[in-house]
């Protein structure tokens, strides 16, 4: 029971790190990015290539899984995404589905269809026993890492100058420019960090979520639920939504293997009926 809770929390925190970039781009920058999962997949495959094939240490692989998608994100933002910020949502949907499809086909071509795993260091395998509760070492690492990231993210958005600049740029880009804020650089950096976090999540999660070329499409619904159910006003909402989703999914699959997959849809529908605007919503402005 507690093990399931623990696994659910690990899964949920992983989902949060995966989707956090999306929560920021969708919530703050109002960009619908259905190709977000492609950056996560990129991180996963980077880790697979470096750790499994090139023999890098696991930690270095994780770092690269952040850096490479972040650079890729920055590049894509500068060359492609910035053209669709001002377009209608339909265009953003079409554009990012297009990118996701291309990523799926390209990875399929380059790496093959089969599922891959990142080789874990020996020290992270197995369980430790904490007061009778079996706790996977790797999941513990995920919780610790993701917890740190969450705290850092919350701090960065709420307390730092960069966070203030981002909020100003989102609220009123023109005024922000007038104040000397380089809005496009702020957006690019935000997008890059979001993509990097997705990549890190993809690498960390390969063990738990599975990694194959269809990852971006398979997990699109999870990301959408985290952002839409969580609401787009803060990252606390998506964080709680991710935990709810993680625990619900793990518990559902454990207790009702046949129909456990429906837990996430049930969560989605129930929340939508009770709170159509998401769990946590900014008080509607004028």
């Amino acid at each position, binding site marked *: 029971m507690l093990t399931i809770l623990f696994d659910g929390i690990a899964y949920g925190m992983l989902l949060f790190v995966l989707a956090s970039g999306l929560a920021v781009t969708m919530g703050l920058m109002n960009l619908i990015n259905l190709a977000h999962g492609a950056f996560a997949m990129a991180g996963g495959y980077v880790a697979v290539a470096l750790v499994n094939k090139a023999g890098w240490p696991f930690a270095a692989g994780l770092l690269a899984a952040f850096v490479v998608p972040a650079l890729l994100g920055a590049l894509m933002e500068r060359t492609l995404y910035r053209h669709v910020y001002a377009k209608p949502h339909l265009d953003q949907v079409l554009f990012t589905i297009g990118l996701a499809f291309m990523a799926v086909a390209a990875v399929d071509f380059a790496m093959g269809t089969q599922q891959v795993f990142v080789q874990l260091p020996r020290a992270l395998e197995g369980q430790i026993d904490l007061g009778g509760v079996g706790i996977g070492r790797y999941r513990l690492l995920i919780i610790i890492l993701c917890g740190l990231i969450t705290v850092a993210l919350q701090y960065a958005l709420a307390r730092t100058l960069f966070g203030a600049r981002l909020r100003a740029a989102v609220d009123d880009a023109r005024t922000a420019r007038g104040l000397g804020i380089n809005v496009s650089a702020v957006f690019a950096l935000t997008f890059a960090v979001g993509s990097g976090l997705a990549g890190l999540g993809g690498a960390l999660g390969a063990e738990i979520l599975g990694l194959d070329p269809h990852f971006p499409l398979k997990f699109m619904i999870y990301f959408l639920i985290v952002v839409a159910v969580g609401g787009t006003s803060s990252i606390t909402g998506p964080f709680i939504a991710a935990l709810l989703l993680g625990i619900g999914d793990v518990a559902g699959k454990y207790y009702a293997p046949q129909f456990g997959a429906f837990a996430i849809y049930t969560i989605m529908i129930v929340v939508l009926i009770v709170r159509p605007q998401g769990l946590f919503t900014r*008080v*509607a*402005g*004028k």
Partner: protein
Amino acid sequence: MSAALETVGLVKSFGGIAATSNVSLAVARGARHALIGPNGAGKTTLINQLTGVLTPDAGRVLLEGSDITALSPHRRVRRGLARTFQINQLFADLSPLESVGLAVSERLGRGHDWWRVAGSRSTVDDSIAEILERFHLADVMHERTAHLPYGKQRLLEIALAIACGPSVLLLDEPAAGVPEDERHDILGAVAALPREVTVLFIEHDMDLVFSFAERITVLVNGAVFTEGTPQEIARDERVKAVYLGEEPVHA
């Protein structure tokens, strides 16, 4: 004299800031009633609560004596409450003909006709023609609204509200942005409304307010500051002070 439109203790706040505080307002039937106040006084927020776009935190809205606080915007329109918007809210891809046709169809209860081709009912067509002519839109009725000059768009903005056949009409700065020489079209159309139509309007242009209004309510910081006839308001030193205090903002 009974009120056509009335609010009782209306309260609305956004994130702790009171945009409407305890507003009780009665607009007499057939009135030409102006709502004035400095920027940020909460005039448009009040209109949005009257029309149902916003839900008040407390208080009631009464139309012809019956409580409409819980009604959705479109039901209020059916009860005879129509509005215009400060910033044009038009259908860019539709023509004036289609836009007015839509409003008239809804008024005559034909909006849900899904099989009959639009334009095949003469009562609807007559009514559309009448509105298009009254608002000088007949010559541009086929053009895409997005391509119309601003003056025509403003006329359409008001024509659409009138096409709803309102008994109470709310005008949110009807002449906003319209050049001096085109104003008489709009003001003429408003002035020509039948006496039984009640008009509540927001306006910044004081000449216009004093030439048209028979009663004026001054709103400051979301609350009713004072109310009276144009003469009373013109004499009120406190009202002047409120406006003078705002002057630097305008400059």
